[in-house]
């Protein structure tokens, strides 16, 4: 589904919404704080046949299910040793080519009422898998030995009608499903054909959890999450509802991961440690999303509206049009134009990566879900 449909607001309503979101502090239609998420209900392990699964239900009635299936696949080694995996000190691997590894995760997104080759759906899937693949620590976990790796199939299904842009919902559900994913325990050693323990109870988690739950998570890595953040004026708003998105100046999909420590982060990712509490968050990817606001019909200022006697003022139609497309008139809706402002983008990213900030809050909340 595209981010651009289903906006059924009049220009006046849009203008009102935009105005109230531009206030400091912004006033959101549902009364949330700018960084506050909508309440959600989550559970894991709902599909017994999968390696991991989760379901999340947002309060607005949108609901998604994600199932993760893993399969053993032979690693194809390129002719010139491209993509060759070199064993590191901790039995981990350095990636060589990287292209080979994108194939290790296959993601399908299904949105009811939308064709699966719809550009919006494809874009959603791309964004979600991009976030996963950008985290090389994640792909590393799928390595079995030089010759074999796990291939993950993530099946993401939105089971409710797409009431709002489902990116955050799908991302959080995927995150939770991956958290609950277990892979059979490897019994063979070295580069042998893999041979697994047939005891499911012995299967380790893809993202191993420390023994004591809760607070000791700091050093542990987690699957990445992709958040939807938007800005109206200088205000940064998290988890926007459909209506809010309709007036966004900028909308960004930001993928972050809670890296264990900065030492692990390669140099191309700038560690964004801003405080000493909470997790080390790493930025994985950013994508701007074309906000639906761009396609909204503009409002017409009274001055230009003939019904309000615009023509009576003897202005030429030429002038009236100039007003409509030119400078903004206070209180009259006008679709945002141009790219995002650099300052706003910077602030936005800063806000996301804030220690003890929104992301931490979300991760904490998901941490609390029992991985039964």
């Amino acid at each position, binding site marked *: 589904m595209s981010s651009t449909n289903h906006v059924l607001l009049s220009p006046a309503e849009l203008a009102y919404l935009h105005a109230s979101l531009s206030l400091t502090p912004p006033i959101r239609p549902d009364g949330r704080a700018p960084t506050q998420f909508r309440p959600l*209900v989550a*559970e894991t*392990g*709902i599909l*017994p*046949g*999968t*390696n991991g699964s989760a*379901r999340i*239900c947002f309060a607005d009635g949108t*609901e998604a299910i994600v199932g993760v299936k*893993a*399969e*053993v696949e032979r690693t194809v080694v390129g002719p010139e040793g491209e993509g060759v995996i070199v064993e590191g000190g901790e039995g981990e691997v350095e990636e060589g080519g990287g292209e080979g590894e994108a194939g290790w995760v296959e993601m399908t997104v299904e949105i009811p009422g939308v064709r699966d080759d719809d550009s919006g759906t494809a874009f959603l899937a791309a964004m979600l898998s991009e976030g996963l693949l950008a985290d090389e620590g994640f792909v590393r976990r799928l390595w079995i030995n030089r010759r074999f790796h796990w291939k993950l199939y993530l099946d993401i299904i939105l089971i409710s009608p797409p009431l709002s842009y489902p990116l955050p919902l799908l991302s959080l559900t995927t995150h939770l499903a991956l958290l609950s994913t277990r892979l*059979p325990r490897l*019994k*063979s*050693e*070295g*580069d*042998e*054909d*893999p*041979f*697994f*323990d*047939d*005891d*499911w*109870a012995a*299967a380790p988690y893809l993202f191993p959890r420390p023994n004591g739950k809760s607070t000791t998570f700091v050093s542990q890595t987690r699957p990445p999450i992709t958040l939807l953040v938007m800005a109206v004026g200088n205000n940064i708003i998290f988890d926007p509802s459909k209506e809010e998105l309709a007036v966004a100046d900028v909308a960004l999909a930001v993928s972050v991961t809670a890296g264990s420590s900065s030492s692990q982060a390669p140099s191309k990712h700038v560690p964004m440690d801003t405080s000493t509490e909470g997790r080390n968050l790493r930025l994985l990817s950013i994508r701007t999303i074309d906000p639906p606001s761009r396609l909204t019909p503009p409002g017409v200022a009274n001055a230009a509206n003939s019904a309000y006697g615009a023509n009576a003022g003897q202005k030429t139609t030429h002038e009236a049009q100039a007003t409509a497309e030119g400078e903004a008139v206070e209180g009259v809706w006008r679709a945002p134009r141009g790219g995002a402002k650099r300052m706003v983008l910077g602030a936005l990213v800063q806000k996301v990566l804030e220690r003890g900030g929104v992301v931490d809050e979300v991760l904490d909340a998901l941490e609390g879900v029992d991985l*039964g």
Partner: protein
Amino acid sequence: MSSLKRSLDRDPFAANISSKVYVRSTKSGKVQKIVREVYLRQDIPCSSKLCRACLATAPQDAAGRPTPFVLSEDPAGTAVYPQGHYLVPDTNAFLTAMDLFEQSAAFYDVVVLQIVLEELRNRSLPLYNRLIGLTKSEDKRFYVFFNEFRLETHVARDEGESVNDRNDRAVRKAVAWYAQHLARTGAKKVPAVVMLSNDRDNLRKAKQEGIPACSLADYVKQLKDGDKLLDMIPETEDQDTAKEKRPGEPLYPEYFSMSKMMTGVKSGLLHQGIFNVSPYNYLEGSIRVPAFPKPLLVLGRENINRSIDGDLVVVEVLPKDQWKEPSTQVIEEDAITKNENPDAEETGDIVSEKERKALQEEVKRTHTKTTEGHAQPTAKVVGVVKRNWRQYVGHIDQSAISQSTQQGRKQEVVFVIPMDKKIPKIRLRTRQVAELVGKRILVTVDAWDRSSRHPTGHFVRSLGELETKAAETEALLLEYDVQYRPFPKTVLDCLPKEGHDWKVPQSMDDPGWKDREDLRGLLICSIDPIGCQDIDDALHSRPLPNGNIEVGVHIADVSHFVKPNNAMDAEASIRGTTVYLVDKRIDMLPMLLGTDLCSLKPYVERYAFSVLWELSPDADIVNVRFTKSVIKSREAFSYEEAQLRVDDAAQQDELTTSIRTLLALSRKLKQKRMDAGALSLSSPEVKVQMESETSDPIDVKTKEHLDTMSLVEEFMLLANVSVARKIHEAFPQTAILRRHGAPPKTNFDELANQLRVKRGLDLNVESSRALADSLDACVNPSEPFFNTLVRIMATRCMMAAEYFCSGTQAYPEFRHYGLASEIYTHFTSPIRRYADLAAHRQLAAAIGYEAVHPSVRSRGRLEAVCKNINVRHRNAQLAGRASIAYYVGQALRGKATEEDGFVLKIFSNGFVVLVPRFGVEGLIRLRDLAEPEPAAEFDAETYTLRTSGSREVEVELFQKVRVRVTDQKDETTGKRGVKMELVSVY
């Protein structure tokens, strides 16, 4: 939002549902998580005849009768459980001591838990099959209780609990439930329910929970005659103590992990194959692997690494500097390890001093060799994929028993020497040494630790005194895995109700006559060996008006009596073939059919399956047809009678003339076959003559060959070929055929070289025709037997013929090399071979006589049948030969004769002589030649052994020698065999 998961608290039926989660790895390398829902029920009966409650809910058959309960209402008691008891063994009890449960002295009323059965199947399929056999036997009263599906006994796995612990808990829970359940029946004497386990932890927990439990040894001690049974408990009881006992270095290299082996095999670095031990040298094995045309050699204990003949092993090729020639020495285990003490545990060296010496000589010899490139690649065993251990027949090595312990009941360790020389000595712990010495005993191999030089095993049962006919015959049958137990009732139930009174129905309207031709008017006769009771073929011929000749081969219509897929058919397909021993016949089909109803006896009407040809006077087939028929044989001749009759010019009756016609035709047929390149092969065949009353062997005779034998043979071949064509045409994918692969040329390398060097003869193996011709050329005018000798040796280079399902091979592969026939099957002996029976069914379907039965069509099933009958066929041959060898030994007992023999094989320290008169081969070692052992010079190039010193002779291959044949009881194998001494060299 409510959860989508099945909530266990609110669902009233939640208690009835459980699930089982596990990981399944498929052959193709896929790994799947499998979730199975388990629906728990309460109507699974306890099957105790004491219980009324279960009877009400027990499953019923179609007639509404509940299935009869198994466990006795009055089970036997023991010293500890005088009120009677039911046994509930856990998995390791079955794994370690299945033989105990098969005892008839004890172990009745056993509850086999489903969880135990499943675990057993995963661990050992043969043991599982034996247990299934036990549960089917009515008198043993074994009952399979599906504890996993019964609500009360189902156990969910706790968090952090290992699978084994969970299964043990399930066993304990089932035991506890049984006890409670039986207590509720209100019976006067409630039997105890006793868990049997060898797992210390499990026993301890049972004790804590107050569940009656015993270790196997403790339990057996409670029984009468327990001491005897104690031997059947293998000694691997306590792994921990065993480890403490021998802290010494492991003697053998450790096996690779399964996954490492599989990876290696897949990548072609390791090779998988069946391990075969050389019959002459127990330290030399060979493995035929798909990657190489010639087998790989495995030399020495360390490289053999605990594999036993028949195991499926994985080997690694050794570096080239360790390649060797196959040994030219005879090395027998008993001779070299004679004085080993089974009790004294190995002192850290697997290769004993003497073995090492033998090896040195080997190396010396290899090094003195001038010709390079003779060395063959060698390999070492790195792991065993599948053990192929069976029960072995042997006897206790008397030399290794200490005198002091000959009496008394003390447990002792002895060596058992298996009858089969390829099997290593087995260490055995027993309390009944005194009783077992001098007996044929059956033992099972339990394990072969890295730290033990010999495998360890346990005693199963005694077959009787050595050299008694009963014991030796049974030993033979066991060794060759011949099913010799009487037919079970279910099989006998399949026989016609009329029994011996069965007759071909009088009325032609009877369904038995449907589509049957009435051939009672034909002059049919049968020709068989003397005393043959299961006559499955008969013949006739008559001239046709057009100058051609009608020839009919009539085969017993066994498929009329043995319907597919009934108990009799299943039994026959397992037996595969009738086994002929010298004094005994082990039938494939019950006597009633084999020797009466199916047998084409003279003067009575019998159902038959007829192949009728119209042959031109030159024995060309004009046409052929197949029909079910009714025949009446006019006479049952023996070969000799028939021969006499044919030779007697005075006999001019119609029957004799027709036999003469057949004989003339058969000669032409044979000539045609020979022209096509059929081989006339040879194996030394003898016949043992028995005294009629006591059936003691009195003399040995070589079989004579009569023309009438080849008469029957030719027409049987003709019938088989004709039938093969027909069924292949009708069922191109599933016809059951017989092929004989062309032997690889390398098989003949040795023989060709020997002939070239010794006789200047050339062996051409390009085709069967060329081989036949060059075999014909191998004659020595002064020694008529030489040709036969070469044929015997050539036969040993051949592949074995095999049954197969036509869909598994390409048409050119159907070829029968020996018979030089494009296509071949077995059709003519359905009474004694299952393949023929299957061919009958296919032919009946092919001519539209009956509908195609699914079993005739299913390729998978037919392949399994072929595989089994190939093995059975081979075993039957081996058993037959072994039986003859035994009786030859018995016939020679106490006699010494001088005979002519021929040198068949030559080693650096001995040679093998074949004595055609008795059809026996004997090994003459250097040390047998004279005392002290003469020095010898062995020239492998010219196959000559020259001795000097105490006795000077020169022996070479193919040489005719004079040997004295006596009987001798081999102290080591306990076999009475022939012993040969060299008298002189011609």
